[in-house]
């Protein structure tokens, strides 16, 4: 195990428990992936891949909501920008994974800066409304642009092969593409967790706690909010860029509020401000939707009731609920935070 079982020297470090959950999650995902590969399954592996892709979107919401204290109701905008950029590149330019991902980063950084300059003029509920509005405007534009397939979306995104240097992954191979997406999400998680523990992340947490005091510490809150916004946009867009590789199409529904709203719900159920919570939440909710949706057409009611129950019983989300317990186990007798 990678977990240090020795009691923490001074402060009980809150992230230890979260990292333990992350290690547990990715190990379990690997094991289940291997099981799926061995059983020759295709549907469940691809469903899990989709869950991981939407986990990327949820993580990007968590950067804003959990760390910076900004509720984005339009994060699907960036997921959609990534998905459409990747789809257009793969379909019309070249079926290259790296080109699609690179173009997504460039487009999102440029567009994200513009979006961030607009959205970061305001805070609180106004930020939520502006992000919501931006996403709606872009969704409507895409919905009416014939070059982007308009309301029908773009089909015919080819099934690509992805050269990784040491191996080549075929996106049409369920197990192979699942592993690739799992690795990418794990990398994103590790990178973001590191960044959030670094001074940059601590400044974001300070902004969430009391933005007016941050300048007194010598940091510019606006610059940090901008950086957090563009970072979150890129995380969402990278996840979105994987979507057409999996499903072979994009449609304007990916930019609609339903997608943004689901991401926020995923973060809240999984655990705000934990980064791994959104990943766990995405997998659980995707599985739940698939099973309940087959069972009854009133699935939205069932999911809604479960969501309310989970908020009442576990206000800090799934990961937030097990964290104190795990923390006690990891740090011996010391009391939880």
């Amino acid at each position, binding site marked *: 195990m990678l977990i240090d079982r020795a009691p923490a020297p001074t402060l009980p470090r809150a992230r230890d428990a979260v990292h333990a959950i992350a290690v547990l999650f990715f190990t379990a995902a690997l094991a289940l992936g291997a099981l799926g590969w061995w059983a020759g399954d*295709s549907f469940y592996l691809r*469903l899990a891949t989709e869950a991981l892709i939407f986990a990327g979107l949820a993580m990007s919401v968590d950067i804003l909501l959990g760390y910076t204290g900004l509720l984005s109701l339009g994060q699907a905008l960036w997921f959609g920008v990534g998905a459409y950029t990747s789809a257009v590149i793969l379909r019309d330019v070249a079926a290259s994974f790296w080109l699609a991902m690179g173009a997504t980063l460039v487009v999102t950084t440029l567009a994200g800066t513009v979006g961030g300059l607009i959205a970061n003029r305001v805070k609180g509920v106004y930020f939520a409304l502006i992000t919501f509005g931006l996403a709606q405007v872009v969704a409507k534009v895409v919905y009416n*642009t014939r070059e982007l397939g308009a309301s029908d979306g773009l089909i015919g995104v080819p099934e690509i092969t992805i050269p990784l240097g040491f191996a080549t992954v075929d996106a049409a191979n369920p197990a192979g593409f699942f592993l690739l997406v799992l690795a990418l999400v794990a990398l994103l998680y590790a990178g973001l967790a590191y960044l959030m523990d670094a001074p940059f992340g601590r400044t974001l947490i300070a902004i969430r706690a009391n933005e007016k005091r941050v300048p007194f510490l010598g940091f510019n809150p606006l610059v940090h909010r901008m950086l957090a916004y563009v970072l979150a946009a890129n995380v969402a867009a990278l996840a979105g860029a994987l979507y057409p590789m999996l499903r072979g199409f994009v*449609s304007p529904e990916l930019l609609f509020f339903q997608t943004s709203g689901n991401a926020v719900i995923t973060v809240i159920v999984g655990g705000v401000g934990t980064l791994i919570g959104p990943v766990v939440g995405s997998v659980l909710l995707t599985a739940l939707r*698939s099973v309940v949706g087959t069972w009854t*057409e009133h699935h939205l009611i069932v999911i809604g009731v479960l969501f309310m129950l989970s908020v009442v019983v576990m206000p800090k989300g799934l990961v937030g609920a097990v964290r104190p317990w795990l923390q006690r186990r990891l740090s011996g007798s010391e009391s939880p935070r």
Partner: protein
Amino acid sequence: MTRMTTAAVTAALLLTASTAALAAEPIRVGVVTPLSGTYTPIGQQVRWGLELAAKEINAAGGVAGRPLELMFEDEEANPAVAVQKAEKLFQVGKVDFLTGTVNSGSTLAVGQVAERNDRLIATTVSFADSITADKCSPNVFRVNARAGQQSAALAEWLSKEKPKSKVFYLGPDYEMGRSTVAAFKKAATDKGSAEVGEVFAPLDNKDYSQYFGQLRASRPAVLYTSVAGNDTVRLLSQMEEYGLLKNLLVVGASGTVTSQNIGAIGKAAEGFVTGVGYSPEIDTPANKAFVKAFTAAYGKDPDLYGADSYGLLYFYKAAVEKAGATDTASVRKAMEGIQWATPQGTKTMRAGDHQAVQDMYAVRVTGGKFTIVGSVPGEAAIGPDACTKF
């Protein structure tokens, strides 16, 4: 796996339990259709039509001696959900055939899933021309009339009723609205009518009177509109208030005046004409029997979605029995060019683009109800085969 087999089909299977049909392995038909959200009323008609047909087919001994089993999944009218559900039905549910998609985005995306899984699908609702034209797929069939057939039928009727008339066009300002106006304009101009004006009003427009000056000044004999829902209610009510409906024939898309908004439009809807592929009024014994059975089972009249979905299972039955197998290649081959009987009359599946050819009707609102005022033979409404993919 949990299977959402409906009570009706289960009941039907129980009824036929004594016959030989049940002894055979069932043929599974997946249905990915909106059972929640805005499109629920359409999904409901699709479901009723399919369930009624499955019940009848199973009671009569099934398809090639095998019973039909329907498996429903809710697609929420969202292509991203639809592809996931379609994959589930193909790979976990092991369905032999799939149908039910409503919005054309879902049909196109699910068609691609079918291609990659080497299975066949058919839509009974989507009317975007592209599905059986530039975006056609060897694995996708359409048994309902596409938008082009509807406007061709209406243009054909118009050229007979009011030859060489002056037409004014008013559409909703979004992609679908503009393409429906363009399609009808082409069909009508080919038949000799002249365009005297064109405006596009925003979707959900509150006040249409700003366009009335232009409309009056151009003195049209016919107004073509493709607005829908509450927009139609406002447009036609305001036109009546301004006295513009006098000496003006209003024609439109099939979704402009429907059973859902006709009550709210009231008298202003009187005289509106549109082109459709089905009406419960069709005066044939087959349709009368269908309407009677449908109304008895569900308490509502079938609409075109219910009728086309009902006819779909007979299409599949005919193809499987002709092929003598259920594998994709043989069934596809059998489906191409096949003729089968539906409440709307005999339909033919065109081999070149997988589009059903059927007789079309012009219907007019008279006394708050749609009555058939003319019919156009299938060949005259179908238009050229624009599919180059297979």
